[in-house]
């Protein structure tokens, strides 16, 4: 662990800025992008997500949640039936009927996403036209947008990318002579967002927006003076579209762990011309708290070997955190998709020779994992119990997406997520 806050450290000779990557193509064991709706529908409080898909999509949504969220969730599935496929019913008319019924039932909805699925993509149901058509009918009370969460195009967290990318064109244009402003992109837990907001205010960045906002009517404007900071490493398409509207990315490590959070804040501060000393002073207390919280788990995790199956695309920054702040050894860092540019700062902090893999052939990867016999395996829910039964210790990857882990105050929680399975194993005597 470093002793002073870092800001984009110079890649050392021993780092891996441009590492070799094992690319695999075979059976995958990952969620599709629809799963992102689980957290997106809670984040944007007046948005509704209507999946246009099959019974499988609906079943995924209720099974993947692990528990059914019965507080009338703000998502649903319009299940395509035989009559829609056979042309007996016009799929577009059917969709309009379903949407109108839904909006009648839920007058509180201001933003409706039509979410494409594998079946709707394969039958080429044009949801962007449907969204335009429906928008005209229900505007101005409700805005209708669309994106695809299909498993033939998106993996797990890419669903959030697709959703935010759909929002970008609808954001208001900030005037060209507007002052420079900061936009944080990516869903963060509300409490984490509030923490960052306070820190940015403390260091003197006057105006900070978050995308997505908590309300449909409060989405930020963007323009050539927007400087944006990614809060999540899986937002490639959203970033591309923001740049298309003039926004400029602030290169930074992702705000995971004490070091990541410090690097992230420093990168933003530097962009706005704030002296590093001012930033250091503003974050000194939370940084110290984060280090203290993380250090509690160092004894348990240092020297332990970790293996990542691909899941959330958070693997690289989390691996960086576990390696640098907790002293863990990285056996394999698997990720569904490797965005080298966005991950540059995190990669620069990883040791040379780290084994990366992209994509998946699950049976081969399980073989590698067995052979490597790591101390802890990060994997999806389908694999966790079978690997535990083989004697491995696992951490469910999905918890990393459903738990607030970003920022100083959560750095200890993030470490604890990895310590807990080892701790549990140590306690059990049966």
């Amino acid at each position, binding site marked *: 662990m470093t002793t002073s806050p870092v800001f984009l450290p110079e890649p050392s000779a021993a780092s891996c800025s441009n590492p070799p990557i094992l690319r695999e193509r*075979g*059976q*995958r*064991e*990952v*969620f*599709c*992008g*629809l*799963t992102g709706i689980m957290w997106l529908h809670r984040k944007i409080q007046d948005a509704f997500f209507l999946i*246009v898909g*099959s*019974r*499988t999509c*609906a*079943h*995924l949504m*209720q*099974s*993947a949640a*692990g528990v*059914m969220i*019965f507080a*009338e969730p703000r*998502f*649903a*599935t*319009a*299940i*395509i*039936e*035989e009559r829609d*496929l056979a042309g007996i019913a016009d*799929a577009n008319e*059917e969709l309009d*009927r*379903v949407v109108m*019924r*839904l909006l*009648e*039932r839920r007058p509180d909805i201001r933003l409706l996403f039509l979410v494409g699925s*594998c*079946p709707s993509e*394969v*039958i080429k149901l044009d949801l962007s036209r449907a969204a335009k058509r429906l928008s005209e009918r229900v505007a101005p009370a409700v805005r209708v947008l669309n994106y695809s969460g*299909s*498993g*033939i*195009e998106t*993996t797990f967290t890419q669903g959030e990318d697709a959703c935010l990318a759909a929002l970008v064109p609808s954001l208001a244009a900030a005037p060209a002579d507007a002052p420079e402003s900061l936009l944080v992109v990516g869903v963060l837990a509300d409490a984490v967002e509030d923490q960052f907001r306070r820190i940015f205010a403390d260091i003197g960045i006057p105006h900070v927006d978050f995308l997505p906002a908590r309300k449909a009517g409060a989405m930020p404007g963007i323009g050539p003076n927007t400087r944006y900071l990614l809060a999540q490493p899986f937002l490639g398409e959203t970033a591309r579209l923001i740049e298309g509207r003039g926004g400029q990315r602030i290169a930074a490590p992702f705000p995971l762990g004490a070091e990541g959070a410090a690097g992230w804040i420093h990168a933003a501060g530097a962009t706005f011309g704030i002296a590093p000393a001012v930033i250091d002073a503003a974050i000194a207390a939370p940084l110290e708290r984060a280090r203290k919280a993380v250090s509690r788990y160092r004894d348990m995790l240092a020297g332990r070997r970790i293996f990542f199956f691909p899941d959330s695309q958070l693997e690289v920054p989390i691996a960086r955190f576990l390696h640098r702040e907790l002293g863990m050894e990285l056996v394999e860092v698997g990720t569904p998709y490797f965005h080298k540019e966005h991950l540059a700062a995190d990669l620069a902090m990883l040791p040379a020779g780290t084994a990366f893999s992209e994509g998946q052939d699950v*049976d081969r990867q399980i073989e590698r994992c067995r052979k490597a016999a790591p101390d802890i395996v990060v994997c*999806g*829910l*389908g*694999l*966790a*119990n*079978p690997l*535990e*039964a083989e004697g491995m210790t696992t951490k469910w990857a999905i918890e990393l997406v459903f738990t607030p882990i970003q920022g100083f105050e959560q750095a200890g929680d993030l470490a604890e997520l990895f310590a807990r399975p080892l701790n549990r194993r140590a306690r059990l005597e049966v």
Partner: protein
Amino acid sequence: MQLTVWTYEGPPHVGAMRIATAMRDLHYVLHAPQGDTYADLLFTMIERRSKRPPVTYTTFQARDLGGDTAALFQTACHEAYERFKPKAMIVGASCTGELIQDDPAGLAKASGLPIPVIPLELPSYQKKENWGAAETFYQIVRHLAGPHALPPNAARPVRAAGEKPRCNLLGPTALGFRHRDDVRAISGLLERMGIAINVTAPWEASPADIARLGNADFNVVLYPEIAGPAAQWLKRSFGQPIVSTVPIGVGATRDFITEVARLAEIDPAPFLKAEESRLPWYSRSVDSTYLTGKRVFIFGDATHAIAAARVAREELGFEVVGLGTYSREFARDVREAAARHGIEALITDDYLEVEAKVAELQPELVLGTQMERHIAKRLGVPCAVISAPVHVQDFPARYSPQMGFEGADVLFDTWVHPLMMGLEEHLLGMFRDDFEFHDGAAPSHLGHASRAPARAAEPVIEVAVPAMAEAGSAEVAVEEGPTGWAPEAEQELRKIPFFVRGKARRNTESFADQRGIRLITVETLYDAKAHFGR
């Protein structure tokens, strides 16, 4: 298109997975995109299985669609065979795989694998999980046992003298509601009756076991939703009669013993005498008096719902006020059962309709699935789970069957537990304003933490689901209706326990209506009470 929030059943290929996962030495190659792999977690997390389901997903992506997805499928078949060395393979497509029309059946046939390859046609846009499980089991049985079928019109060979009667136990699958424990309960019962179990399937059966299904004298169908079509085919092909009674409850278990004994040509009397359940005595115990006429709403798969209705009425003395199923294939059976209880069956797979019905009927107990558990929680009505769809809680560590006499004991405990005990219920009626003993108070043995927000429940429905307001809330209708309530009568009505208040309100209003009474007074309320009884 059907607007759906929660579903009772998954798609048909999940039904096929339940069969494949229950069996040994069988592998399922599924033409499907990556997202469909979520289904693995149903088995590894909900059922806590220690092995991955034996399923290979071809994992085609958008960029493959213009190219050769068929080759991808064939490669997946070959690699799965090499890696897992199954004794038989089932192949098919998920909903998306079906749309790209690669013909898995033809491709698998052409693949030249040295094992039986059984193609599945599971129309994802018409059918659902249980149908998919039934069709898959039927296809496996037909393909693997078919070569051993009797020649047309041949009679079953007679059992050798001194040989035990033999039966198959059909229907238990992975991810079934208590299938694991029902198999143990019924196997034990049959063995005590001196009947050998030839094969239990699909539960832990291998393809070789399926091939010898014909060696049994008759078939016991535990779950008609799953084993019905296969058992019918076995009856036609091997002349094996079917035990049609599902042994849930004391009465049904007795009927089951009698029916089995008849087919096995043995005397049931000693077993009816020897086998015991505590349920009959517990139900006759004076402590259970308070269960009399409790209004119960039942919803689940057809088998469990019909069985629960019988147990509820005949063995616990409840009144069945609602009975329904999401198993459309068995709608007729459920309608007939409902008619026996003098009610109309609710056949739907829309949980909002079920919720509206529960709200309308205001039962004192709901017996349902995990969906009804949530509905009941919201409405503040006690609930016990009797059927799939399942949740991790439905796989208890302890032995907890639904079938046989031990199962009947489990039913008694599980259904009575959520209710308020007799004396407590009386006290609640007597001292309504007690700050701890108020309206929505949960049974004290369940602790205050689990208290259901009974009073809040009604407005929640009205706000969240406006479309349901007409159906769901009698209170709204009343204020607009022709008959009004005097304030003192309203006050008096509130002294009636919340779970029967809706019924009292409706009864009083119809009583007033029939007599042309425009204003309901305290007098009217008690006149109506005297008129209707409890």
